[in-house]
């Protein structure tokens, strides 16, 4: 008896096709890009404090208050 591999609507061989491999890899890379941005949103914000501090002394040479 022959065993037919089949999904609900499409044959499961679709998942082993070349174009699906391309789609999967495209999605995989995008997912990593977006998960990187997601991690960046969770972590405390990265700031170059020492650089900001260095330039800070050049700023506000006078009070800007009214």
């Amino acid at each position, binding site marked *: 008896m022959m065993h037919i*591999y*089949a*999904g*609900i*609507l*499409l*044959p*499961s061989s*679709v*998942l082993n096709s*070349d174009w*699906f*491999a*391309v*789609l*999967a*890899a*495209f*999605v*995989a*890379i*995008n*997912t*990593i*890009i*977006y*998960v*990187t*941005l*997601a*991690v*960046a*949103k*969770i972590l405390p*914000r990265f700031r170059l404090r020492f650089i900001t501090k260095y330039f800070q002394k050049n700023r506000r040479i*006078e009070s*800007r*208050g*009214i």
Partner: protein
Amino acid sequence: METKWLARIVGLVITAVAVGAAFLLAQIVILHPDLGVPTPIKEGLLGEWDLLYSSARPPASVFWAAVALALLAAAGIAIIERYAMRKARLSLNKRETPLSPILIMKETAGRHYPLTLTVLVPAHNEEAALPVTLPALMAQSYQPDRIIVLADNCTDSTIAVAEQHGAEVFVTVNNKRKKAGGLNQVLATFLPTARDNDIVMVMDADTSLDAGFIEAAMDRFRNDRALMSVGGIFYGENGHGLLGQFQRNEYIRYSRQINRRRGKVFVLTGTSSLFRPAALKAVAEARGHTIPGHEGDVYDTIALTEDNELTIALKSLGALMVSPPRCTVVTELMPDRKMLWTQRMRWQRGALDNIGAYGITLATARYWAQQMGIGYSVIALYSYMLMMLITVIAVDTWIWFPFWLLIGAVFIVERIVTVWRGGWKARLLALTLFPELGYDMYLNAIFVKSIWDITWDKKAHWGWEQTEQSVLASEATEGLAP
């Protein structure tokens, strides 16, 4: 303006960049087909069940390349924005950037006018909202000197209600240009006599300011005379079920982002923003010359999103602006899908129109990048959904992918953390991940429709059909008049 041609092809430019980037990535993937090939499937056992799992994951080099790409893109946009701000701060070009802090500091040196506040409340049939808004405004820890309700084409008792609550009333005359037109009328009478520190606040009649909003904003103006504008940060009101929760989560994430940017402004929200007179005067003078619009108008009456347009106008003129964390307001949400669609179509189309009108400049670079980012996210999200769909309908045996489950878990953590302050309902919705992905797909569809419309020059509208029709009708009648 020489950039007028951009207005029509703005959609094509954004589409070309987004599709181009996706195409480039697809080419790389095709040239290196091994990137997506799953490694052999191993069978594992977990308790009573047989579980099939695959250790498939991208090679380390691909993983780190994608991480680097994401960080570079984010850093690139941040650097451009920082460069634009720094350039505006130090610009001595009086014609192009009359509002640059360095110029304003020189102009106002030695002038010490007292700080005053005039609140403008545009109102079109707002008899129901004013009895809540006006007393709340007067109960703020910093009392406004004047509150002026702009009664615009009102057919209800807006005028009487406003007077009852102690506000001044300005009745617009023959205004056919909605909120922007009404504001232009009152500002034309206010600005000529306004001095450096006579701050103007524009707020919607249905907005409720959080306690301490005005005090925090006025402190900023007191401490920095080069500061041209303070914008509110908005949160969604309660109610409206699941659709309301989607919008609340969206607004919470947006405000969190603003706070993490230390108040760097995206949009000076029309719901509540404050301006120095110099800022509004400079915009009115520059229109038709260095920025789009009619000379003499503070607000661009053609723009669908006049607050976004004014923000870009001010940034183009070098103005310093901030959204302080204490300046929060609660704004109304769209109660059903149809109204949400109309509102977002207007926002999205307005945003595209605005950057098209201004062209690609240092001041608009951040906004272009944002639209291109949305364009790319449409491709990324829909291709992800397509892959999931194909997998689900083609798979004969369910296989678990631990690596991708871990990635999914990170996404869920991010969704939850970013709405944490919204309470358990917000977190619960974030935890389920897919409903919010569905909401994102809905917003993406609106983006695509806007791009389509702008490219084929379909007319955009305000979504206030009643008003729109009456305006069109009155204009048509005028045309017929002898």
